[in-house]
């Protein structure tokens, strides 16, 4: 790993293009209600195929952070969060717009998002390498427990009923079982269909589960659309643009008042991000609640207090970098969007762990720095482009749907030039749709799919390393395993804790946001 190599990576044309596409594209994707960061990343993974690894991942992380920011634009101006993570911003942000302070709300959001994201990038740079080194002490047994922990916590945090979340995760693991088992040389669950022998590919499954199912969910509102609800949207955008008077930048006083908020929210966001499975929406709500608690003016929250916007946006962007920490070091995504990025990493041959920071260090450090730059670019472009992004949110569904479908289908095909992948995508699209209708989260299933073979190999190797001793006893002799075991038990109780938090803060907030929460981030 050397500085020259990193600089070469960063200043290549591909990286610069990747940054631009990622930042602008991310903002637009985020601002469009119904399209979230998770889905945006999933659709654009195929586009990164013939790109070098570093620019590819930089683009994906840029999309992640800018979509999180973009979501706030429509939350503030149209009272419709573009992504779930901006739900907490909608109430105060929109109230500010109605007061004519919409532009300032966007200004606050831009600064907060940029600072939150940049902070998390810096922390990623400092926290990840030591953690990667620590992961050297991990052998198969620990890896098995880590994957178990990742699945347990994503399962418990992503649904109202953790049993459904875990079921989704296990289902993902099961689907990963389909195919040829290399260790024993037998085919499993293939029913003599050749196509199934190589297993279910991750990226087609991802695209199906997230993008196709989303198109179907959007389709539910077709009836309303046919009855010319478009005019409503047009009027809203006009009103929003009218509300964007006044200055973009907060006053010196306001900015000074924001600073403790930003620091606190940034740390909250970072920690929530590092926690596997907890995504932008949790980060923003927790930090919103804390900002309210620390405020001398609690009643104004929800009615247009810019500190609310600041807290929520700083945190949700800080989550992005935080979620990359466990992802790059241990292979456990810190959020569902990170899980999709894991898919992207695997395709480019980047395996999370110690090697990523040593032999492949050039690539990894380029990615982290590129991610930091993306956050800065986001602020710069946000300052100039926020107004125009709003106009984009008016794009009607009937234009979006075909574009998404074509991109998904062709993108999937482009992976291996195989129509079979497309069929997989189609099947999983239908499955994803029904899962979301029945309140079963899709993110754990993706994680199960990705981690399936890793978990099984780890278990098998543990059994052989136990050399005849019952494998459970073998586990209990390893301290790190015990630690993770305790963590797994704790994460089993996490949902109860989350319910308490939700009741305190949210109540009306989350329902008003009226957004499909299940797999977005």
């Amino acid at each position, binding site marked *: 790993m050397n500085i020259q190599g990193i600089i070469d990576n960063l200043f290549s044309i591909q990286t610069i293009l990747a940054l631009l596409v990622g930042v602008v594209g991310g903002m637009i994707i985020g601002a469009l209600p119904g399209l979230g960061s998770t889905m945006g990343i999933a659709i654009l993974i195929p586009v990164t195929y013939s790109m070098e690894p570093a620019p590819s991942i930089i683009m994906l992380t840029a999309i992640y952070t800018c979509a999180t920011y973009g979501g706030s634009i429509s939350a503030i101006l149209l009272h419709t969060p573009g992504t779930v993570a901006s739900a907490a911003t909608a109430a105060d942000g929109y109230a500010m717009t109605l007061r004519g302070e919409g532009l300032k709300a966007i200004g606050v959001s831009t600064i907060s998002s940029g600072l939150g994201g940049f902070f998390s990038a810096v922390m990623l740079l400092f926290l990840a390498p030591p953690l990667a080194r620590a992961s050297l002490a991990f052998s198969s047994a620990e890896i098995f427990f880590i994957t178990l922990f990742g699945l347990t916590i994503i399962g418990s945090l992503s649904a109202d009923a953790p049993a459904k979340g875990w079921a989704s995760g296990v289902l993902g693991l*099961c689907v990963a079982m389909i195919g040829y088992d290399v260790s024993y040389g037998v085919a499993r669950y293939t029913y003599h269909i050749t196509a199934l022998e190589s297993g279910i590919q991750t990226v087609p499954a991802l695209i199906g589960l997230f993008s196709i199912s989303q198109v179907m969910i959007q389709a539910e509102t077709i009836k309303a659309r046919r009855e010319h609800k478009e005019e409503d949207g047009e009027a809203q955008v006009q009103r929003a643009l009218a509300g964007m008077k006044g200055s973009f930048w907060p006053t010196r006083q306001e900015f000074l008042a924001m600073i403790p908020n930003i620091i606190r929210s940034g740390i909250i966001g970072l920690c929530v991000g590092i926690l596997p499975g907890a995504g932008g929406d949790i980060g923003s709500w927790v930090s919103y609640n804390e900002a309210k608690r620390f405020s001398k003016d609690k009643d104004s929250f929800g009615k247009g207090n810019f500190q609310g916007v600041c807290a929520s946006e700083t945190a949700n962007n800080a989550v992005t970098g935080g979620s990359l920490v466990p992802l790059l070091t241990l292979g456990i995504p810190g959020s569902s969007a990170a899980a999709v990025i894991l898919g992207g990493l695997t395709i480019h041959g980047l395996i999370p762990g110690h090697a990523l920071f040593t032999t492949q260090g050039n690539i990894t450090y380029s990615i982290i720095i590129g991610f930091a730059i993306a956050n800065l670019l986001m602020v710069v472009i946000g300052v100039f482009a926020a107004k125009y992004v709003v106009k984009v949110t008016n794009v009607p569904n009937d234009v979006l749907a075909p574009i998404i479908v074509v991109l998904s289908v062709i993108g999937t095909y482009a992976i291996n030039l195989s129509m079979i992948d497309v069929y997989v995508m189609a099947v999983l699209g239908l499955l994803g749709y029904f899962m979301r*209708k029945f309140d079963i989260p899709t993110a754990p299933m993706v994680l199960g799919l990705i981690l399936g073979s890793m978990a099984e190999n780890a278990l098998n190797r543990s059994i052989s390393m136990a050399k005849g001793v019952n494998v459970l006893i073998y586990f209990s002799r390893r301290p790190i395993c015990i630690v993770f075991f305790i963590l797994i038990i704790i994460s089993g109780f996490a949902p109860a804790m989350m319910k308490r938090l939700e009741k305190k803060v949210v109540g009306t907030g989350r329902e008003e946001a009226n957004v499909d929460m299940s797999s977005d981030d």
Partner: protein
Amino acid sequence: MKKNRMSYDVPIGIFLVAFSAYFFKESFKIPNPNSALFPRLLLTILGILGLVILLGGLRKTFRPKETDKPEIVSLDVYKHPMFVYVLIIVYIVLLTYTNFILSTVIFIPLIMLYYGSRNWKTIAIVTVSTTVLVYLMFSIVLKVVLP
């Protein structure tokens, strides 16, 4: 007494238990028993979780609580999404037997019309621009051969 509407968790739970049981039985077809260990483990867990969900569904049916999320049971909701899905399948079939350009040029107007778009100009613009851009992006920039 008011009739309780059955929570959809009940059929979900039943399905999961049945699913686990069926594939557990299927696991005996795997030639090497060691290889079957992990699947069986997973399916057992899945079955237990299915049971939990089933019980939760029964509880929601007979003793509904305030905090339970409202469940949409009407079949109406599914009409449009399913039709869109059918259109997507049609597109994929077209792609299998013909080429990209033809399939896409047929698909996009179809789906836009279904969505209620009546503005032929818009439809034409979207169709042409999407097809052209995707074609350029994938075959030239990324050097991918399209079906």
